[in-house]
């Protein structure tokens, strides 16, 4: 059966910003649609309207000519519209299985069979009985996808589903999506990765500042034309100049081990590496292979033996993040909504989370609000966060803008070493360009970076040296010039 979904003159206005401005669009099953746009263009808002999470100020939605009244997510579910959100909606302490069945009234046993079938069919191997908090971001995303599939949806909306998947996982997902599409499910796909759009989609709609600016067929487009449509101007491509390698060592990790009490975390085994000044060390790997543990050990959220980390000739293994910041380290974690920021707090309060003694945010134990606000305004303008209201709760920033705020917060302090984990997850091409530029600039200023990323392109573009993490072990450290993405792929899979 054919499915036809029509969005008609939808408008959604927030105080200070028109998120959707009279948008009309039509979709038919059998095709995969891409929805593109810069950070804050209004893509998530539009699909949240389709899934009943946000109620538009004006406009109607029709599914097969029926006007839908979508007042809540359950209305959307009833009408067979499924959605995978940009930010995870899972109960961290419940098991995967419990998360999957929580809003279903089918019997547990039959559901379990159904889930097993889905996992086999689309190749999503996940242990159903472990708590979600032990899953990597990539695995959580899969749980979300499975949750939609259980309901046999007519329409499946995905808001940046591949941000955390590896190339391998992504191409597996694409196979599944193509299969869904052949099976008659209408697919709307939001992404910032233009390569994916070219690979996967049939039609593409581009939004800019709340307005729909173009709808076209993929066969008439290429990556550059799409990028230009999104940003409304030509993007320059950036490239890292090969730095003259310095031999001035900044950080050295020696025999670092981490054994977790939690059986679902990855143990780190015998980690050894060093980074010189002005260098970027890239760490590749499939998500869930110990990256988040490595990040936490490096940031001081997990304390290790004092001598296992030597930074600038000081042993700092036993220091907490706050104390490490004083040595000019900065950290940008992967999970910005749950860890790097507090969504319920205002923008400027979130800025104060990264605080050096010298930044004077807190004097004699008192909050120095003016200083923090001044600093926040600088971050917002330097890093193009699209709001001018630093009193806004950070949950109302679009995904990409929140990431800009956090990266900005860490970079503006001009640290000697920046440790970042998937720094461009969810950013639009313009913003990615900007962050990449900034990272390159950091290296040019003779400062160092440890870049943990699941995006191989990003790693190859920015790193001087690359290592691969697999099951908590690092491969030998390679010069970036000698590495190809194929070679990385093989190492990420665990081969030697």
């Amino acid at each position, binding site marked *: 059966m054919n499915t036809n979904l029509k969005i008609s003159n939808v408008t959604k206005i927030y105080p200070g910003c028109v998120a959707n401005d009279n948008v009309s669009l039509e979709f038919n099953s059998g095709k995969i649609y891409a929805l593109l746009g810069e950070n804050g263009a209004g893509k998530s808002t539009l699909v949240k309207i389709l899934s009943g999470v946000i109620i538009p100020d004006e406009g109607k939605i029709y599914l097969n000519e029926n006007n839908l009244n979508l*007042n809540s997510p359950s209305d959307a579910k009833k009408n067979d519209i499924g959605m995978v959100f940009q930010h995870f909606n899972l109960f961290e302490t419940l098991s995967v299985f419990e998360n999957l069945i929580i809003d279903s009234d089918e019997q547990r046993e039959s559901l379990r069979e159904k889930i097993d079938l889905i996992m086999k069919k689309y190749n999503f191997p996940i242990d159903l009985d472990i708590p979600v908090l032990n899953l990597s971001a990539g695995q959580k995303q899969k749980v979300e996808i499975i949750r939609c599939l259980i309901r046999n949806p007519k329409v499946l909306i995905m808001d940046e589903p591949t941000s955390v998947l590896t190339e391998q996982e992504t191409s597996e997902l694409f196979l599944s999506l193509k299969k869904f599409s052949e099976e008659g499910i209408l697919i709307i796909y939001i992404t910032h990765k233009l390569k994916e759009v070219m690979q996967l989609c049939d039609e593409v709609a581009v939004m800019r500042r709340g307005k729909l600016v173009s709808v076209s067929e993929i066969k008439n487009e290429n990556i550059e034309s799409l990028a230009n449509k999104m940003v409304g101007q030509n993007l320059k491509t950036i490239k890292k100049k090969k730095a003259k390698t310095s031999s001035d060592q900044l950080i050295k990790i020696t025999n670092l081990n981490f054994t977790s009490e939690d059986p679902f975390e990855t143990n780190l085994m015998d980690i050894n590496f060093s980074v010189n000044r002005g260098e970027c060390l890239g760490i590749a790997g499939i998500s869930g292979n110990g990256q988040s543990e490595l990040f936490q050990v490096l940031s001081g959220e997990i304390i290790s033996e004092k001598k296992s980390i030597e930074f600038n000739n000081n042993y700092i293994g036993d220091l907490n993040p706050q104390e490490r910041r004083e040595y000019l380290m900065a950290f940008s974690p992967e*999970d910005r909504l749950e860890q790097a920021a*507090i969504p319920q707090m205002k923008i400027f309060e979130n800025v104060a989370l990264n605080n050096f003694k010298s930044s004077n945010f807190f004097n004699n134990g*008192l909050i120095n609000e003016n200083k923090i606000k001044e600093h926040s305004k600088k971050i917002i303008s330097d890093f193009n966060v699209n709001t001018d209201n630093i009193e806004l709760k950070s949950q109302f920033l679009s995904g990409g803008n929140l990431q800009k705020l956090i990266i900005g917060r860490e970079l503006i302090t001009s640290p000697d070493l920046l440790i970042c984990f998937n720094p461009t997850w969810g950013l639009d091409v313009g913003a990615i360009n900007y962050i990449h530029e900034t990272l390159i600039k950091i290296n040019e200023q003779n400062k160092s970076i440890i870049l943990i990323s699941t995006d191989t392109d990003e790693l190859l573009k920015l790193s001087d040296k690359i290592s691969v993490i697999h099951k908590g072990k690092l491969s030998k450290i390679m010069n970036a010039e000698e590495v190809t993405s194929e070679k990385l792929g093989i190492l990420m899979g665990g081969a030697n």
Partner: protein
Amino acid sequence: MIKIVKRDQPSKAIFFFTPVLAIFLTLVAGGLIFFILGFKPFEALKFFFIIPIADKYGFSELLLKATPLCLIAIGLSFCFKSNNWNIGAEGQLTFGAIVSGGVALLFYEQEGFYILPIVILAGAIGGMLYASIPAILKTYFNTNEILVSLMLVYVSKLILDYLVVGPWSNPEGFNFPETRQFSDSAKLPLLFEGLRIHAGIFLALAAVVISWFVFYKTYLGFQMKVSGFSLKTAKYAGYKGKKMIILVFLISGACAGLAGVGEITGPIGQLHREISPDYGFTAIIVAFLGRLHPVGIIFASLVVAITYLGAETAQIFMQIPKYTGQVFQGMILFFLLASDYLLFFKIKFIGSKK
């Protein structure tokens, strides 16, 4: 047609309006209950909420009851804001009273300006010690603070019982379960001749000001706020999460202990079995009714204090059991939770047009 719609963003006005709505609904429901019991609802409500505070004496009694409620609730707000569920304030109050009472008894024959401060300090320390038990068990042994703090309430009451019946009972007291009267130097001064309101109210007001300052102006308050929202973020920022947990318990224990001191060195003047009509539990309601905000807590403590007084007058004039006071407290909490629904949803009235 009526429709319930999700709010995009909870509004600030609604946040402070729902407690008022809850109080209003409590009055309506209370009137209804009185009506069912065969009383004239308005008259009964008048006995309950107006008569008790209509004169100077009544007003002083109101402040007298509101003082411990306010003090404890301020302390609890530190815990609740940072997601630590200390519900054992009653035990911390009792233990604070025991320690300060013990110290006051040591000085029972002496006079001197230095006695009262020592007694007060002893109460605060007693409360802190008692609150440190659930805090330490929670941080180092992963126990649930709700259970531990609650069970410790009963332990403290039994200790008090044992002391006033046994070792500390008044030698000239004909075996009544009570201690000697404290000396005047160990008592909080009365503020007005003939009224029971005492200097403890200043402790409560100081707690309000200090907690406002700490919450909104200090780094410590900021760290508590962050830890309350997310321990993960607190860890990332480098705050010492465990210390923070212990600290909020200590603050809240100190406040409860001080409330205990206020009771025994104020209106009571000795230790006996019933030093608190469950102020420590009722203060939980006060804290939430006041939205964990220092100023809100002042108002909430006054409102809830009336239910104590009203229950007494109603018992005398209308022969209603004084437990109706607790019924009203329960209803306030119930309606508060119910009207909090409005924080996240709004009710839309939709005309019949299609």
